[in-house]
């Protein structure tokens, strides 16, 4: 991220400053919590009544990170969990304070795993300062004092006090330089399935999402961008709608969109629907799903491809193989379709720009507001709200940019931009489209001697983070197929070649829950099943033979096999499938029980296992597992964004459907952390449900489906 430098004094001038407090990294005159209490450090505020406010930099979008991160801080803080609340620091405050909270970005299942050390240290440092403050008051060594449940005790003199009573004094103490952390075996709160901190408001309609922001004098806007990605706005006839009820203004937004501002959203939407607009789709208007598929298909044979993983000599291995097996797969575009359509509210004056929104990346939203407003950082602020789903989509800030560009055309009036579902469906950042050819070489005993995987298709990083490319290669395309690291393949094959022929259609790709593990797991784990069938070996046994050097992959696979009773008869009429994969630092596996009658597929049960190293809140991990299966199986059976004349054809949930409760399998979770590493939770498991179900469908029907969604093959999910 690039930030414009912020004049700290101007920031502080706008903040209430109470005494001297201590930032975790940089001591300076600090702001207070939203409720006015001084902070102990950047992560912890303790109010006189012992309420503890824990600051959370990452965004909550349902995945439970707010609660999990609070558990991490509270574990070391030794505070009374029943008195914990949370608050988001703002991105502007972060810039002003030289980034004491680190990365606000919330994606890649990184919320806990990439901040676990410094948030725990934040809690531990605050505890040390609170204890020191009590010790100073009692004139005893801090080492003689203990802290538990927000109470500090000096046993020798039989004295005790609470965090709330010493917080103001603690805030003035030099932060400790050496901040030791607990041994994981001593954790009391980490590892416990405590209740989420954000549930109650969600059951009474009180939780505030970006779409619920209300400001005095606020107007509502909605927008249409050129349906053809990369196309331009040519003209619109505002006179046709300006006299419609409630309409205030019709404005161009950038060079590719037009918005209507009105008193209510419905008036804005009605006017926008009636507005004559002329688009210039340009060259991209010729692109279709068919033309994209043809281009990708060529990539399966192209001479040029990036090599992501290689050992042995795959070409020689295939040439000398006793038997070759070849299969081609493909996976379509998917839209995030967050339940809350994209929105942001902006208030612009020539001297200040403020934005209220749900975002997965507060700092990126801030940067977008800076750029769109043209104001310096000291005059920009972003206020984060609960996200009505993110799944990767709200890591982009296009809607923030639009909201500011609209607000600039009506200064001093707060304007809430809310996309229609149709706009949301047609202007996503889509799960990338790929095809894959897998070629196996088997020796005369049926052993997998050679595996060549050629993926052809879209690179997300080329579109969104070109600086992360390695000599033009997108390393993320090999997620789950790498030789080592946080997304490593779980099989040893003597001759292995995994390649990517990059083909980037004009449809913008994005990080979609699971990202590249979705299709990579379907490709590899379906093909493993094909090879098992080809060699007459049980699919579990076939995999096990290749996994001797991958004990953690094998651990989760064995766990689901045992729990589902692999090797014993399935319930009458049901058939089993199994799959394993790795992503985001976690090892995951699933085994499914499925029946198929008259092309109606019923997924009865899925047993899932995950080894994320450490499990901060197993109850929430279970919810992420079953939730991820809904997202992944919705895509497998129902979801597909197709392209016609350069635009996405699907417009709403009637054409881009999503699973309902009747279609939900029973999900049994095995959360089996083996310790010593930190893996992610929100995404990894999404990878294994589809291949486990596909392999079960094959067991049931003898049919191998290699293109998706399954509805295109006449299969329905019941």
């Amino acid at each position: 991220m690039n930030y414009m430098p912020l004049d700290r004094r101007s920031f502080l001038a706008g903040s209430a400053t109470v005494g001297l407090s201590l930032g975790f990294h940089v001591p300076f005159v600090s702001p207070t919590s939203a409720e006015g209490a001084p902070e102990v450090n950047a992560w912890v505020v303790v109010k006189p009544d012992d309420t503890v406010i824990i600051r959370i930099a990452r965004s909550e979008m349902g995945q439970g990170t707010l609660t999990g991160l609070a558990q991490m801080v509270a574990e070391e803080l030794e505070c009374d969990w029943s008195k914990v609340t949370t608050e988001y620091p703002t991105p502007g405050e972060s810039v002003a304070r030289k980034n004491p909270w680190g990365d606000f970005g919330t994606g890649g299942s990184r919320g806990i795993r990439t901040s676990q050390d410094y948030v725990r240290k934040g809690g531990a440092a605050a505890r040390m300062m609170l204890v020191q403050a009590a010790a100073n008051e009692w004139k005893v060594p801090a080492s003689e004092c203990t802290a538990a449940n927000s109470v500090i005790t000096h046993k020798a003199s039989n004295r005790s006090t609470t965090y709330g009573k010493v917080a103001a004094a603690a805030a003035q103490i030099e932060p400790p330089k050496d901040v030791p952390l607990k041994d994981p075996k001593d954790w009391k709160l980490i590892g416990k399935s405590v209740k989420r901190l954000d549930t109650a408001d969600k059951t009474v309609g009180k939780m505030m999402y970006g779409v619920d922001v209300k400001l005095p004098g606020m107007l509502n806007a909605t927008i249409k961008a050129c349906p053809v990605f990369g196309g331009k706005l040519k003209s619109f006839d505002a006179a046709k709608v300006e006299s419609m009820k409630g309409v205030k203004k019709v404005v161009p937004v950038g060079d590719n969109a037009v918005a209507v501002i009105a008193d209510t959203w419905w008036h804005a939407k009605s006017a926008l629907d009636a507005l004559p607009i002329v688009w210039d789709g340009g060259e991209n208007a010729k692109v279709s799903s068919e033309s994209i598929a043809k281009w990708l298909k060529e990539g399966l044979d192209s001479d040029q491809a990036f090599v992501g993983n290689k050992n042995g000599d795959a070409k020689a291995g295939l040439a000398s193989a006793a038997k070759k097996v070849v299969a081609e797969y493909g996976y379509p575009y998917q839209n995030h379709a967050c339940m809350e359509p994209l929105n942001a509210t902006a208030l612009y004056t020539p001297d200040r720009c403020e934005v209220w929104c749900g975002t997965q990346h507060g700092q990126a939203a801030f940067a977008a507001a800076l750029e769109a407003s043209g104001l310096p950082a000291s005059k920009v602020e972003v206020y984060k709200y609960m996200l009505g789903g993110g799944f990767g989509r709200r890591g982009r800030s296009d809607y923030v940019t639009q909201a500011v560009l609209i607000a600039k055309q009506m200064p001093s009036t707060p304007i809430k931009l809310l996309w229609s579902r149709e706009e949301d469906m047609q202007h996503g950042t889509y799960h990338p489209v790929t095809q894959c050819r897998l070629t196996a070489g088997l020796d005369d005993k049926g052993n997998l001697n050679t595996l060549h995987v050629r993926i052809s298709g879209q690179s997300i990083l080329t579109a969104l983070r070109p600086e992360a490319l390695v000599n033009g290669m997108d390393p993320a395309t090999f997620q789950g197929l790498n030789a080592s690291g946080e997304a490593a393949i779980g099989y040893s094959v003597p001759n292995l070649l995994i390649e990517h022929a990059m083909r980037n259609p004009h449809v913008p790709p994005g990080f979609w829950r699971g990202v590249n593990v979705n299709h990579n797991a379907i490709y590899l784990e379906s093909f493993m099943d094909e090879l098992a069938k080809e060699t007459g070996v049980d699919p579990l046994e076939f995999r096990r033979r290749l996994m001797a050097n991958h004990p953690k992959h094998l651990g989760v696979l064995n766990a689901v096999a045992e729990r589902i009773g692999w090797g014993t008869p399935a319930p009458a009429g049901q058939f089993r499938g199994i799959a394993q994969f790795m992503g985001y630092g976690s090892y995951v596996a699933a085994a499914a029980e499925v029946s198929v009658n008259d092309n109606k597929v019923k997924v009865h049960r899925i047993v899932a296992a995950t080894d994320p190293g450490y499990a901060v809140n197993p109850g929430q991990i279970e919810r992420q597992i079953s939730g991820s299966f809904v997202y992944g199986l919705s895509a497998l059976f129902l979801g597909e964004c197709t392209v016609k004349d350069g635009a996405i054809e699907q417009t709403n949930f009637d054409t881009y459907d999503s699973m309902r409760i009747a279609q939900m399998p029973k999900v049994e979770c095995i959360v089996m952390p083996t310790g010593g590493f930190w893996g992610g939770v929100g995404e990894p498991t999404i990878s294994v449900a589809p291949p486990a179900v596909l392999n079960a469908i094959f067991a049931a029907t003898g049919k191998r489906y290699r293109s998706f969604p399954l509805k295109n093959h006449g299969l329905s999910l019941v």
Partner: protein
Amino acid sequence: MLRLTINGKSHDVDVESETPLLWVIRDSIGMTGTKYGCGIAQCGACTVHIDGAAVRSCGVTAGDAVGKNVTTIEGLAENGILTKVQQAWIDLDVPQCGYCQSGMIMAVSALLKEKPKPTDADIDNSITNICRCGTFQQVRAAIHAAASA
């Protein structure tokens, strides 16, 4: 000017009678617990009760609601006492992002009024709300918990 009764309170609103009830509730009256998800009565995020029955408020006009009793998520608890459904939602930690849950709770509350002890098949037939976080497993468990509370 239309007169609507929402959560037992009368509201005079200056809207065209064909305005979807959802937008009158959200923008004109300013109660934001009822959510916009699709606008075509597919997802159920905007579910409210009209004379006790679960209705997708994006598909009903304000004019249609005149003279009827509309209940939104804000009006479900009486005198601040949560209903069994809301309590079960808290006890079982059902919501993830929570955006669809107002509508989900309203749909489930109407179901339980009609069928106090619903079977899984009853749930499958009557609860058709979309949840992209995928809370269905917890939703089902919470419905049974509320039914036996």
